[in-house]
């Protein structure tokens, strides 16, 4: 093992499965679909009323874990950070070494304004909704940050961009510990404009299915603690995974539509493989962006098939059928699931897939049950409105399997 390689030493998550990575991974293993009727907002009158919420019990349980803050996303992030630092065996305060915070989000604290949506003129009470740095306020109360505190908001690639920025900061020696993640809470604003764009599914998100009708908003936060591998082993711990490569690009095409050839995605996948020195067949799971919208999935499947053309079709699935689309939290949640997939040698299935889209035939769509077998490398890609793309390649934590 290269002592200077960038290792994942801890993970944390708040998701529609509840609090903690264990709950998240159990839901993935048990193939639970966590989308359902929204309880937080009154959606009567909307043509669809489904999303993926962090359960009310888990939200209530945050009271005993993290400081109060009006923003749920800020509290999700603080809870996931505390879990990840605990998992890494690092104290939140009185640490040795410099710690940096790299957090991705799409809407940050803006959903505080959603609570004013009702009938008639919009009531506006909170000020934090217009202050983006408030997203980090709860984390700052529980973790001493003496390095960079970077809030990345490039669209839905946010979580991967946070991992890329944090991994680079560890590799360059700018920080000893990078807390990298993403967070967003369920936004009624997003739900309203997705409704007007006719982008929402009514019953289930079915990524890569011929009958897919759209996506659903989700929410949550996930955090990966990154350090040099040598620092982790010096504490007597084994890395959970390694960040083998990251790559960023843009479609430069359209605000809401992906490039029809998936140009940015293909570029980032090829760059990741080149940087890690691996072949397309060495990728055991492609954790897809897979939003379930008609516009996205066929483009994505074609781009992955082209970028990973090897002896076998790339093995691909999306967890958004189970978790919804957590926006800024999505890529970070998927990276945490990738870390667990590497540890448990399980490729999660396309749980809601019924009728595979023939347009996606270039990839090997994982059956709903998932697949047991060696998982040595996971490629996880994220992109979104605005055209920014960021892809992350993760490898096993154990040295022999890299």
């Amino acid at each position, binding site marked *: 093992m290269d002592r200077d390689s960038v290792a994942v030493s801890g993970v944390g998550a708040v998701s529609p499965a509840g609090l903690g990575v264990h709950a998240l991974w159990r839901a993935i293993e048990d193939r639970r679909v966590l989308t359902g009727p929204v309880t937080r907002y009154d959606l009567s009158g909307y043509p669809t009323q489904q999303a993926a919420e962090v359960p009310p019990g888990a939200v209530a349980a945050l009271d005993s874990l993290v400081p109060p803050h009006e923003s749920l996303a800020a509290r999700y992030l603080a809870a996931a950070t505390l879990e990840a630092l605990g998992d890494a065996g690092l104290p939140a305060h009185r640490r040795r070494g410099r710690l940096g915070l790299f957090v991705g989000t799409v809407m940050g604290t803006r959903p505080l304004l*959603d609570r004013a949506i009702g009938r008639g003129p919009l009531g506006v009470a909170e000020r934090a909704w217009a202050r983006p740095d408030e997203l980090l306020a709860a984390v700052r109360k529980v973790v001493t940050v003496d390095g960079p*505190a970077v809030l990345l*908001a490039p669209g839905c690639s946010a979580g991967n961009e946070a991992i890329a920025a944090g991994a680079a900061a560890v590799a360059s020696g700018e920080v000893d510990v990078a807390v990298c993640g993403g967070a967003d809470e369920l936004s009624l604003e997003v739900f309203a404009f997705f409704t*007007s764009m006719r982008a929402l599914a009514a019953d289930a998100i079915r990524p890569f299915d011929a009958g897919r009708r759209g996506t659903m908003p989700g929410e949550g936060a996930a955090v990966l603690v990154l350090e040099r591998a040598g620092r982790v082993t010096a504490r007597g711990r084994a890395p959970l995974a390694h960040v083998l490569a990251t790559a960023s690009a*843009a479609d430069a095409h359209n605000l809401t539509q992906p490039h029809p050839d998936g140009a940015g995605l293909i570029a980032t996948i090829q760059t990741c493989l080149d940087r890690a020195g691996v072949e397309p067949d060495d990728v055991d799971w492609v954790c897809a962006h897979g939003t379930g919208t008609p516009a996205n999935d066929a483009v994505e499947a074609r781009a992955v098939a082209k970028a990973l053309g090897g002896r076998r079709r790339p093995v691909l699935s999306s967890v958004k059928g189970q978790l919804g689309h957590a926006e800024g939290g999505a890529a970070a949640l998927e990276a945490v699931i990738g870390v667990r997939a590497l540890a448990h040698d399980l490729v999660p299935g396309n749980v809601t897939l019924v009728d595979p889209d023939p347009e996606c035939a270039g990839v090997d769509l994982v059956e709903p049950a998932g697949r047991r077998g060696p998982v040595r490398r996971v490629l996880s890609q994220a992109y979104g*409105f605005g055209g*920014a793309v960021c892809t992350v390649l993760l490898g096993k934590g154990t040295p022999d399997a890299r």
Partner: protein
Amino acid sequence: MPASVAVRGAGLRLSEVEDLAALARRLSDAPAPAAVRRFAAPDTVLAPVERGVYGPVEPRLPARAGSRGLRSVPHESLLALASAADTPTRPEARTPDDTTAVVWASSTAGLPEYATVCAEASTLDPGFVAPALGPASAYNGPAATVSIRLGLAGPNLTLTGGATAGISAIAEAMRLIATGDASAALVGASATVTRWSLTAAHDHLTPAEGAACLALEPSAGPGIQLRECQRTDLVHATARVIQAAARPETRPDGLVISTLDAGLVDALASGQPFPVWHVERSLGDLGAAGGFLAVVGAAALCAAATSPTKILALAVEPCGSTASLEVSSS
């Protein structure tokens, strides 16, 4: 992060500041009077307010940005696009295989669009909010608009938060150039003033709108260079200033600070053998763009100097996070 990057050019859309020379003068002059404007937010409980601000700033889009299809593009994205399109770049930036990155910082991008969707969701039937507003209601509108309109397929990154985001945007662009993700970068920052942004505005500062952009490329030859980005807490940042000032060989020729706290500027300026400029005093409160303008201001002061000059740009947030960067001319 590479040791240094070179500044190829700058584009500005600031209130009554046309170019770098005017920016250098503005930093040293007494604060300009602010024009009082009225801000309203229809269909909400927010009462209209009158407030002195620096602005409005008209985009004045150069031909390179194109003119079609811009009707629904938000004002802040137009300011960003105008400043970016005005920034001189390498000729290669317009070739298909080029990977020039766009990295942008803003605290306010998408804010009026987000609020307008919420107001429409309150007053209209479900499903009737304007579809064009939603995708523009996140923070990444300026970076996306610059990338799409100028055809830049390199990495596309948006940073938000307080003043340090403006310097971190440069740090991340330097990282993307160093890793090879980007061949060069257009880095910028922007701010707009609306009734919505005023709900979070600081009473003791003049809110301001505008945009600025720098073209960065791998360091080569003479000109203005950026190096030594440090992102840390206030204690370490203060130590950097004191240590640098202590020895003639490391002493900067000046310090440009972006902070909401004028008292902090006075404390850091006290007893220093070099001048200290305060971005928010001269240009007003531009949120995340304040940190970026500390760097652009330092570059402007270097460009205005007649001999090789080294100026430290520093951003400090109320929470104690800081970012600093050395700007020098040869």
